[in-house]
């Protein structure tokens, strides 16, 4: 079913450009409307008209040349947690139980949660057991965010500037976005009964939109977090790697993972040692479900015809049998 016969597969090029997404979105409901069943699908079709079409714009698509990103240089990070503190203050998050200069938090591997958009974790340096490597973790603001693909209410939005933002007013809390996010980012505030919501880094969208830079990048005393145009950051990262090949491994994490992310990382140790998922495909995750969704109109058009025919054949057989029985009966009467 992944690649359904009878429906041309969207070719790779148009799929990675944002057109791919639109193709998919329109193809599915529009065809359904034609076979409008129970009026249901009319409404689904109508959704195509209503829903904004800029969900998941993709890398390589010339439409967003100004898209921003972040570059974290993990070799520069010293684990001071200034970024955590800055994020906490800038976003008015609740005060954590342990202060930001408490190094004991490094004993556990933490993840972003309902009270923190970002956390820094400590890992043993595989090259030198006495040294540590630190990794800052937060939403990667994917080019084709799986969270946005997953959400049935379109509560996520990939903004033209780059940040992936979430709208609490739409969310009903199914948490499929959490299941889908390949980087284990969205958190849920399970403790709230009335207004639980997804919590995740916004890439300081409010600041970015008005020409500012994200709080964590501003706060980092080591300059480990750089904010800028994603294209420039890629160039910068490449430069850094080629200038000091001993310092860095030759991989920009986020350049290609799941179709690329706005947040990029360079590191001195292989990423799998730092808890980064390394088993991810290079193509956007929405590609995985595209084949299935393109089969939907097929089912809506072929099934009624097929099963309708079966039923018609059955009726025909029944009626023929009945007629035959009746003629036989009549003949019997005649013979008598």
């Amino acid at each position, binding site marked *: *079913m992944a690649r359904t016969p009878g429906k041309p597969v969207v070719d790779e090029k148009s799929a990675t450009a944002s057109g791919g997404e639109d193709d998919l979105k329109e193809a599915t409901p529009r065809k359904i409307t034609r076979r409008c069943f129970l009026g249901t699908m009319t409404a689904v079709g109508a959704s195509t008209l209503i829903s904004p079409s800029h969900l998941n714009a993709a890398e390589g698509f010339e439409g967003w040349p100004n898209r921003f990103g972040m570059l974290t240089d993990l070799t520069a990070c010293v684990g001071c947690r200034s970024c955590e503190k800055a994020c906490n203050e800038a976003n008015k998050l609740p005060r954590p139980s342990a202060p930001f200069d408490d190094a004991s938090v490094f004993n556990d591997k933490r993840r972003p949660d309902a009270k923190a958009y970002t956390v820094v974790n400590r890992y043993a340096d595989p090259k030198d057991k006495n040294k540590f490597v630190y990794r800052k973790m937060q939403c990667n603001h994917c080019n084709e965010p799986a969270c946005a693909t997953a959400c049935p209410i379109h509560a996520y939005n990939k903004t033209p500037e780059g940040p992936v933002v979430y709208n609490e007013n739409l969310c009903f809390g199914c948490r499929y976005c959490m299941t889908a996010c390949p980087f284990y980012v969205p958190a849920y505030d399970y403790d709230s009964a009335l207004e639980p919501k997804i919590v995740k880094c916004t890439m300081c969208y409010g600041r970015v939109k008005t020409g500012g830079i994200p709080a964590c990048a501003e706060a980092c005393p080591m300059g480990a977090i750089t904010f800028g145009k994603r294209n420039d950051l890629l160039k910068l990262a490449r430069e850094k790697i080629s200038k000091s090949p001993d310092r860095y491994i030759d991989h920009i994490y986020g350049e290609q993972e799941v179709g690329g992310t706005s947040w990029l990382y360079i590191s001195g140790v292989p990423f799998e040692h730092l808890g980064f998922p390394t088993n991810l495909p290079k193509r956007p995750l929405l590609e995985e479900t595209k084949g299935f969704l393109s089969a939907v109109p097929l089912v809506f058009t072929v099934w009624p015809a097929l099963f309708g025919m079966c039923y018609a054949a059955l009726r025909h057989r029944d009626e023929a049998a009945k007629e035959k029985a009746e003629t036989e009966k009549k003949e019997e009467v005649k013979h008598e």
Partner: protein
Amino acid sequence: MSDGATRTENFRSWFMDKLLMGMTWPEYIRTLITPFNIVAALILSVGLPLIAMRFMFGLATITHASNDYPWGLLLGWGLFGGVPLSATGFVMATAYYIFGFKKYHPLVRLAVLTGLLGYFFAVIYLLTDLGRPWRIYYPMTIAFGTASVLFLVAWHVATYLTVQLIEFSPAILEWIRSRRVRKWALRITIGMTIGGIILSTLHQSALGAMFLLAPGKVHPLWYSSYIPIFYLSSSVYAALAMVIVVSTLVARFLRNRADENFLGNLDRLTLGLGKGAGIGIYVYFALKVLGVAHDDHWALLNTPYGYWFLVEILFFVLLPGLIFTCGVKKQRVGAVRFAAFFAVIGIIVNRLNITIITFNWNLPGHLHHIIPPWQEVAVVMSIATIHILLFRWILNRMPVLREEPGYEAH
């Protein structure tokens, strides 16, 4: 007697006849004191307060409240496990109305009711698990995530629930003796059945397709681009096995609600269903093997998760299939029934494997995270108990296992 008094009297007799099954209140209450009901009451006395707490204090009171494991038993069991077992209505209605397997008539209503309640309770589990269940209609009216597989599932489950209600409505209408409406309901049976086929094929497979978005999280042996087909094909045999399971249970525990047509034909029909289920299992088994071959995952079979995968497909899938085949060949209804229970458990194992047991298999300490808290288990057990009680309530009153005198079959 005044008009009002007559009306009250009419209502009283209607109430006694329909709801108390012809008994007075004290008589009715006395019949309720049975060992089963006492156990049910005990379960509910623990679970219902927990459900209330969940809505007062948030999901954290009954679930793990884990950010890495957003879904637990409520969805793994209730939605992903419940929906394939509720394919009964779609499978039996298709066989009976579209393909003309007329001899299964005594089982069709039971199958439709099993499906209807199965979906209804899948939605109940979902509502318990959603962060803001009062927004359940949002995907239908407020905003549309048309690229989301869950969007499709939401639409289809909602629509199909309505379709099943219409399919089952003749039984309700016979019960309240509404001959005219019943006639209308019967007219659209075929349309509803074909609608049911479309919706079921799509959302059964969509439940599997939901996991396509998480290639990094589902174990590679269970993650396959064929997963929608696996889900669909297993739901077909799951449905046949489930009809056998449910009919076995009602023939045993609600014997007095069934007529001769049902009880007398049951063994013969069970053998027929068993034959179908056996074939369904072989098809599914072959597909699963193809899936491993397609992704060339043979080497993974020789890992701990690989052994568990083999247990699933050999012990929980192939073995019940073989028992079905032997049972049918030797005309041993008991064996077929055993195989059906076994196959149903196998389906649940498969769905739990994908949603819970192997999901996030590569996270450290994974297996410690998947043991559900007792509160969640208690809530699941309570909802399942209410499911059974409602099922029994309906079978006790409406013509499902019997034909209503004066109404022709359809």
